[in-house]
């Protein structure tokens, strides 16, 4: 079909083409200035929901990472305290052995007993360590110190404090310190745990009961130390799990970041190339428009 081409048609065609070019240019401009290829859901509906999902995952990973860091710090504080308790047991052991020799004088035994009493204080101090304002050995009763000065009873509870280190994976960050330190000597005669042992050692030193010191006291101290080591080993194992979880989260975060970037970030070289091409097309359309509209028969009539 041969068409009559009228003045308005040429003008409309030129305007439509220029509009199309400008529309494309403006889209590319938005992509370049935001650096994103998805600026509203309709740009890529599937990509948008994928990006939202990935962003959610990424936020989750960041949260888990923060949980892991918090848990690790908690466990490290526990480990330091437990190590301090280990030193206390070492010192108590030395004092018990020294006090247990028959050549030990009553004065030196009494001095040793004083030091043992001090050591119990140190032990409680270690147990009352706080992390970020919480007593870490009080179970969930984080606002109460596990041991008071007045008595030797455990003031916390044995509930677990947990950190979520992955979807559905929780790790306990606290340990039950009462399984090592015990409740002292109430109810009598005591629970054979560390504080009870130390109280007995102190009493035996004062009474000069060398047999008990050499025998049962030392044995009980050893088994208390074993209990402490078991708890420390548990803390160490959990710290390791935290480290593994941290590394895993780092690589998951990296992956999710890369996927998210692939989904929603504009491909800069591609966008720039597209922009240049589109811009050239726009220039050409302008030029063509100017050339088509300008001349008419009028120019050639005198």
């Amino acid at each position, binding site marked *: 079909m041969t*068409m*009559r*081409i*009228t*003045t*308005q*048609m040429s003008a*409309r*065609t030129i305007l*439509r083409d220029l509009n199309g070019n400008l529309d494309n240019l403006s889209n590319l401009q938005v992509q370049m200035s935001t650096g*994103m290829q*998805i600026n*509203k*859901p*309709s*740009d*890529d*509906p*599937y990509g*948008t*929901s994928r*990006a*939202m*999902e990935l*962003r*959610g*995952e990424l*936020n*989750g990973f960041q*949260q888990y990472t*923060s*949980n892991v860091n*918090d848990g690790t710090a908690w466990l490290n504080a526990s480990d330091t305290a437990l190590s301090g308790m280990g030193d206390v047991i070492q010192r108590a052991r030395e004092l018990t052995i020294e006090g247990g020799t028959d050549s030990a004088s009553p004065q030196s035994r009494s001095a040793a007993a004083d030091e043992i009493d001090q050591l119990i204080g140190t032990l409680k101090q270690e147990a009352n360590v706080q992390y*970020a*304002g*919480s007593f870490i050995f*009080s*179970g*969930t*009763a*984080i*606002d*109460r110190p596990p041991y008071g000065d007045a008595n030797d009873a455990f003031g916390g*509870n044995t*509930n677990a*404090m*947990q*950190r*979520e280190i992955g*979807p*559905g994976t*929780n790790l306990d960050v606290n340990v039950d310190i009462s399984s090592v330190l015990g409740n002292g000597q109430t109810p009598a005669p005591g629970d054979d745990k560390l504080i009870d042992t130390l109280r007995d050692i102190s009493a035996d030193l004062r009474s000069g009961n060398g047999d008990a010191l050499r025998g049962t006291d030392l044995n009980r101290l050893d088994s208390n130390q074993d209990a402490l080591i078991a708890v420390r080993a548990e803390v160490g194992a959990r710290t390791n799990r935290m480290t593994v979880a941290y590394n895993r989260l780092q690589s998951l975060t990296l992956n999710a970041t890369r996927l998210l970037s692939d989904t*929603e970030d504009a491909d800069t070289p591609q966008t720039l190339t597209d922009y240049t091409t589109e811009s050239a097309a726009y220039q050409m359309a302008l030029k063509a428009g100017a050339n088509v509209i300008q001349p*008419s*028969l*009028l120019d050639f*009539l005198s």
Partner: protein
Amino acid sequence: MSLSTFSGLQVALRGLMAQQMALDTTGHNIANANTLGYSRQTVDMTTMPALTLPSISGNNGNGVQLGMGVDVTQIQRVRDSFLDIQYRSENMQYGDSSARADALGQAELAFDEPSETGVNQLLSNFYDAWSAVQHAPNDPSARTTLIRAAGTLASAFASVSDQLTRTATDAQEQYDAITGPSGDVESMAKQLAQLNTAISHATAVGQAPNDLLDQRDELLDRLSGLAQVSVTQNRDGTDTVDFGGVTLVDPRAANGYTWPQTLTNPGGQLGALQALASPTGPAMTYKGRLDGVVAELVRNVNDIYSRADGRNFFDPAGTTADALAVIATDANLVTGTDTTSAGSDDIATAIAALRGGQVDRNYASLVAEVGSDVKDSDNQQRIQLSLLDSIEQRRLSVQGVATDEEMTNLIQFQRGYQASARVMTTLDSMLDTLINRTGTTGL
């Protein structure tokens, strides 16, 4: 019967007049080259009825028919009414898709996704805040942050919901403005009725009121964007116009039109607006889905939160996006089922673990659905625009003014005029010879 001496002058005069009329029409075309809806006009010229001259001598045949010059029978507009029908049908579709695309675009903006301030991010902040509370259950600043984050989330939901409702009410308002008293429909109907009257008067005396017809067609084009238009031409030149299923313009009606009426089958922009404003329209459907997301969130969070002492975190009655309300305060916030120990955090842990759950997924799928609806309607609009454009190009090809063509006509008719003038001069000088020089031999 013999020929009048001066009949040649009449022939030349008619030639002059016809060429002049053609020149005037060319001028009219050029002047209206850019007038919207204008159809170019052409002058129909035919030969005058011939004068039959008997032969002077019967021996030499039957005489002749002498041409008596030119006659202008009519000035008509060049227009293809079939293209008008196509144009109006596509324009209705375009009106529909364009109103839909506009409203959906508005709904899409309501979600403000993907962004750092959209519901998606705020949900994530809400979970983060629960995690922070879990890390330090007795830290008042963590509790305050949580209550704030929950409040921000609630107002973001309310804002999206509000914007979606506004999309629907905007559509209704626009519908009311177009169909209301002295709205577009009424004003166009009134003009159409007036044009009908003027056209029927002109038609009654045998004239073709080209410019009035153009104006009427232009009005019908505009009307067709609003709703389904169908036109019946009457014998007297008037048009009866059906609009959206009811008779809008009818020369037999009191004022020539009947409005307001309830459209039974609108289509076009009005149809789209009606659908958008309806409770089952896209905006309200999205709002319903959003309410579903909120209800799920309230249920999930409260189920966990109430394990401690039966109290709720969110108001259990506020299960729509605009009614989501936090009733827990930082003072009475519980973080675990064991309310006697400050560090009990199983509730905080469980709520923080809702991250990436059904609520997030439902919301993301809602946003994706809105996005793909908008994309579809944008595409639809683009397709309709290009269809409409191609029909408009074809219409302009038929009825538009081509200046080069008019210039050519201008020269052609100018030459015709000059030639007719020359005929007259020639006849004049012939008559001069006859009148002033003949029979002067004896003088």
